């Protein structure tokens, strides 16, 4: 049984039929990407999984249990952690307070020091800046904080929405390397990404979304070789 199963969902963004019957699966321990150009429905799919948008049809299952009718905060509590699009860190809270907010819904509050240590080991920059206000961090540091904050919830699956957005190429590489480390440490990850090349180089499998439908799926290695992907997303002219 897949850890996360998206079963033929249809979702609307306003009046736009943004997701037209998308199905995908993520197994325990996997790292999977959902790639596609702007407006392909990637973020809408992710928002449907996290409960911000209700699907008109179809279901989302977490470990076999339907979560698509639950409110967003309950979905987080069930173990779907997320670093939302645009990072969304709390600008006036310190780095440490932001990370503590990540553990908000957890009952075992005594135990968060171990998770803090884990996040600080993954992102030494955050340890240096832990007393600084989130809003004063650079873009890359804010992305690190958003990922670290999501990890503080000890999610069963981590959803990352465009982690490369607005970052310099060096930083993108650095952040994706850490994402890969997080996966190796046992966290299941689903990344939505426009930067297909980067995403396919760190993930195991991928889905290609086009105008709200999955047009291709397969192992990351195969997708990297695929003619359509190369032309459309990897910027190769034939």
């Amino acid at each position: 049984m897949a850890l996360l199963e998206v079963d033929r969902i249809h979702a609307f963004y306003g009046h736009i039929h943004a997701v037209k019957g998308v199905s995908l699966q993520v197994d325990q321990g996997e790292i999977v990407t959902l790639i596609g150009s702007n407006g392909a429905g990637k973020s809408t799919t992710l928002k449907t999984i996290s409960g911000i948008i209700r699907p008109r049809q179809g279901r989302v299952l977490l470990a076999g249990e339907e979560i698509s009718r639950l409110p967003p905060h309950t979905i987080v509590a069930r173990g779907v952690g997320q670093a939302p699009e645009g990072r969304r860190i709390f600008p006036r809270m310190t780095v440490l307070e932001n990370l503590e907010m990540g553990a908000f819904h957890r009952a075992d509050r005594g135990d968060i020091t171990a998770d803090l240590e884990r996040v600080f080991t993954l992102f030494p920059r955050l340890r240096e800046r832990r007393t600084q206000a989130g809003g004063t961090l650079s873009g890359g540091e804010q992305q690190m904080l958003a990922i670290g904050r999501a990890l503080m919830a000890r999610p069963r699956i981590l959803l990352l929405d465009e982690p490369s957005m607005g970052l310099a190429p060096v930083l993108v590489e650095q952040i994706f390397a850490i994402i890969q480390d997080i996966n190796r440490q046992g966290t299941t990850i689903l990344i939505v990404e426009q930067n297909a090349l980067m995403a396919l180089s760190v993930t195991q499998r991928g889905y290609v979304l086009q105008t709200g439908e999955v047009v291709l799926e397969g192992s990351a290695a195969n997708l990297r070789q695929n003619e359509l992907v190369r032309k459309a997303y990897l910027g190769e002219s034939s």
Partner: protein
Amino acid sequence: MSEETARLERIGVSSGWRSKAPVGLLAAAMAVYPWVDARLGLQTLGAMLPICLFVVLALGLNIVVGYAGLLDLGYAAFFAIGAYTAAFLTSPISPLPFRTDFWSAMIIGFFVAMLFGVILGAPTLRLRGDYLAIVTLAFGEIVPRVFLNLERWTGGSRGMNPIGRPHLFGVQFGPSDRIAWYYLILIVGALSVWAISRLHDSRLGRAWMAVREDEVAAASMGIDLVKTRLLAFAMGASFSGFAGSMFASLFQFVDPSQFEFSISILVLCMVILGGMGNMYGVIVGGIILASFDRILADRLTNWIHGVGKAIDWPLLLSIDLTNARMFIFGLALVLLMLFRPEGMLPSRQRQVRRDREGGAVAARLPRPVPTEHEAATEG
């Protein structure tokens, strides 16, 4: 590691003040005030009673506006509901078939106001900023009007009088027992400060802050937005409710004109002037504005008239600061927004320090997160 733990503990306890000394000083000054007033012959103790009640009101509104970031323009409505609840439960002219003592009325006033907070909040807190402000504005207008028009029960514009008095260990709380009233209100105020600071440092308090900072992020932390906001609204309303019941008993009279829009605005000004989100700032802001309203405007006018007579300048005699109160509050707010937008004593979250290496300059952080463009050039 131990440093982190220590820091965690500190976050739980401290609410943004570097030391507790100023708080102790303020408490001591308040405690000896009746003695100072008597020694200096200031005759301000009578005015201090409503001033302190207004501070409790401001503390309650600070939960809604400062902590949860919800703009409530009809806060006086809950004050009215608390006052009328006390009147209905204790006044001999009340239409109810039973009466209670003052203390029960105060506690019931607390819960009735809370209930109305939930009734108003449940359908409206799904609305965003501006819409919520409009709905609360309307609510603030409707409530006094309802009390005005339910003449058969409330006496309409004639108001309700008398109202039950508190009894405590044989101490009298008559209209002239100002010292007894003063300490009663002070104790209630101190309990409110204690309760609100516990709320601020609680899980709920952190949820309020997160929702105020960024609601999308708060939701993805597993915070229930509607429930969190509703609790802020209900808690804010309840503090206003019991302040209202004390207000009614203190003046032995309630009528709808005591709860007009200008009261909501006055309390909001106290919160903004003092520093939204910082309880001690709000106390100071409340004391300054309310004492200007109740004491200084009057005294300054007399003083200016005295000077006018002495130097024979009729222009000075025509000045009446009590009529210009709202103008002066407005001016003070405009100046404050220009020079110190975070309030006199900003909350810690609002006075963000930049890099420690960059010196201790307090940087005013714009409210939104840096845009993608800015972030990209920084990153």
